[in-house]
């Protein structure tokens, strides 16, 4: 799939995504800044920005094995925490000043215990996410936020005022708006940017200072104005799933002619489709955003009807021909979600393909065969 897109900003994003610890993180550290690693989109990264720290979303880009971490996991744990913890044991995350591990799922939750027992990172905390979307859960999330604020202030000797939180929310919301503008381009009959390129853009945003990232994103949006659209695709695909941070995976789908035009991914729309309310108490606003307003991930119980509605709206707005549901092997939340989505999409007459994968890209030929057969099945 060819795009005529020439963009220095895009190249920079791609480089950041292809590197575990990119130059802007090192620079931040060199200038005396603190870096906080965190897992999962349901952790409120605004609070780290407000504390003057760099939020760094954890991933294991470049990992090539789990030789050190396997001893800490069982055979039914997924490959994402294995690779992340292996990188940690190799010393790749030594520069982190802190780490927040939420109870996204049992696999991720275990990273906390292992990290505590094996590594010397100064500040390692669990962030306890509620599992439902009701009012008591908003309260729970608010309490967790207040606890985290207190712990951060005490450990790092900083003051996280409401005012700082409000301006962090504004900065992160600007980022969300810019990313939504990026997605607007993908609604076109001939989008000027591929799905693999967009994934690189989104992942980069979780590993760079937000203001720097926003500035670069504006450049990219300018480059996209008037850029030539992609015409040589066979079908428009939406990818639904969890932690997918490797653009090469999307490239394989697109290599078969399935242009990825939108998604429901951790590094995707779930991050930015809705803004955090800018009015009122900022702690309350973040809590309500995280528990009720934003699209949730399948770890949240009872919310699948809202999630499938979101997916169906996307299918309509982005003129999606077929949906690919990706899942890390052994991921429990997504195995159930894909099953329900399959039934719902079948009823709606939307072709759906389930793909299991490992965190590290493997079995390219097998992915190709399935995607090709899927496109042929759709008569494309």
């Amino acid at each position, binding site marked *: 799939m060819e795009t005529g897109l020439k963009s220095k900003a895009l190249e920079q994003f791609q480089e950041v995504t292809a590197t575990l610890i990119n130059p802007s993180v090192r620079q931040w550290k060199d200038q005396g800044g603190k870096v906080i690693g965190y897992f999962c989109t349901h952790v409120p990264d605004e609070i780290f920005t407000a504390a003057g720290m760099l939020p760094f979303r954890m991933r294991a880009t470049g990992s090539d094995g789990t030789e050190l971490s396997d001893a800490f996991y069982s055979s039914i744990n997924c490959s994402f925490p294995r690779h992340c913890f292996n990188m940690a044991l190799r010393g790749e995350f030594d520069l982190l000043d802190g780490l927040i591990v939420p109870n996204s799922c049992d696999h991720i939750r275990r990273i906390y215990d292992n990290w505590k027992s094996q590594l010397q990172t100064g500040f390692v905390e669990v962030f306890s996410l509620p599992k439902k979307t009701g009012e008591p859960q908003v309260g729970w999330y608010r309490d967790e936020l207040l606890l985290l604020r207190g712990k951060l202030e005490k450990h790092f000797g900083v003051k996280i005022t409401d005012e700082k939180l409000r301006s962090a929310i504004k900065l992160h919301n600007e980022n969300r708006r810019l990313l939504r503008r990026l997605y607007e381009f993908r609604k076109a009959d001939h989008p000027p940017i591929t799905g693999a390129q967009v994934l690189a853009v989104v992942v980069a945003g979780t590993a760079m200072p937000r203001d720097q990232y926003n500035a670069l994103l504006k450049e990219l949006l300018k480059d996209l104005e008037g850029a030539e659209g992609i015409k040589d695709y066979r079908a428009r695909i939406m990818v639904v799933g969890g932690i997918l941070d490797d653009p090469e995976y999307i490239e394989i789908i697109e290599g078969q002619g399935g242009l990825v035009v939108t998604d429901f991914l951790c590094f995707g729309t779930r991050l930015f489709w809705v803004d955090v309310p800018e009015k009122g108490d900022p702690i309350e606003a973040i809590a309500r955003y995280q528990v009720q307003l934003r699209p949730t991930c399948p770890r949240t119980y009872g919310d699948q009807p809202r999630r499938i509605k979101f997916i169906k709206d996307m299918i309509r707005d982005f003129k999606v021909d077929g949906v690919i549901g990706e899942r890390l092997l052994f991921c429990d939340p997504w195995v159930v979600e894909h099953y329900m989505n399959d039934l719902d999409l079948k009823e709606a007459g939307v072709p759906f393909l389930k793909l299991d994968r490992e965190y590290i890209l493997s079995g390219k030929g097998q992915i190709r065969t399935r995607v*090709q057969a899927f496109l042929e099945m759709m008569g494309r």
Partner: protein
Amino acid sequence: MIVGGCDIGSATGKAVVMKDGQIISYSIVASTTKPELTSRMAMDEAIAKAGLRSIEDLAYIVGTGYGRLKVPFANENISEITCHGRGAQWMVPSVRTVVDIGGQDCKVMSLNDKGKVLEFVMNDRCAAGTGRFFEAMARVLGLTLGELSELALKGKNPALITSQCSVFAESEVVTLVNEGKELADIVAGLHNSIAGRLNSMVRKVGLVKDVALTGGCAKNAGLAKALSAQLKVDVIKLPHDPQITGAIGAALIAAEKAAERGRAQEAATSTLRGKEA
């Protein structure tokens, strides 16, 4: 019009030559480590058998199978999932479920009445339910594949073999052999365990009659019997060699594409003529 289908699998390369909707020749050759070479060997043999002079006599060729991207003379490639569906239904129009067992993978497709794939599941991550599994078990038991298949039909009290993993199943077989269990019963047990695996895949896409078994392992009568017993539906017998089903599907699609191309050329010529007039 003469067209060709070329299916390059992990164990064998297959070529089919069709003329006006009829198979005029086919070939099955052992796969080499070079898919280009395997496809050339298979196609050359099929062309010679058809009494054709060269590959130039074929109007259109579709490549399929694991090596489909490396068939140098193919006009295009189509996934083996689509091809097996088409091939099986062309042979027996009532087929709605296809179980394909190849050298290194197995897949189940559900079809509509036009041979179009509605849904599929595929196992290509482990040897369970593939030709490799049977090869490994035959080796452990010192049998040929033909003997393995025949023995499976003779087992009166099939042994219970719970592992579908070829490595673990091998350990179970060794244990049973040392316990003095009848060879035929062990072999029948092995076939039951793989039939169980295939059965669960069939349930995933939904069991709809008729069911066809394709791929090299479809020649294993013991497996067909074990699968029929588990599905409680008789697997139908195909009128051609089940191993060439994918190549037949590829040739059928080639015929369609050639006709499409012909129509497009005709339309272009008539527009040109129209302009000249």
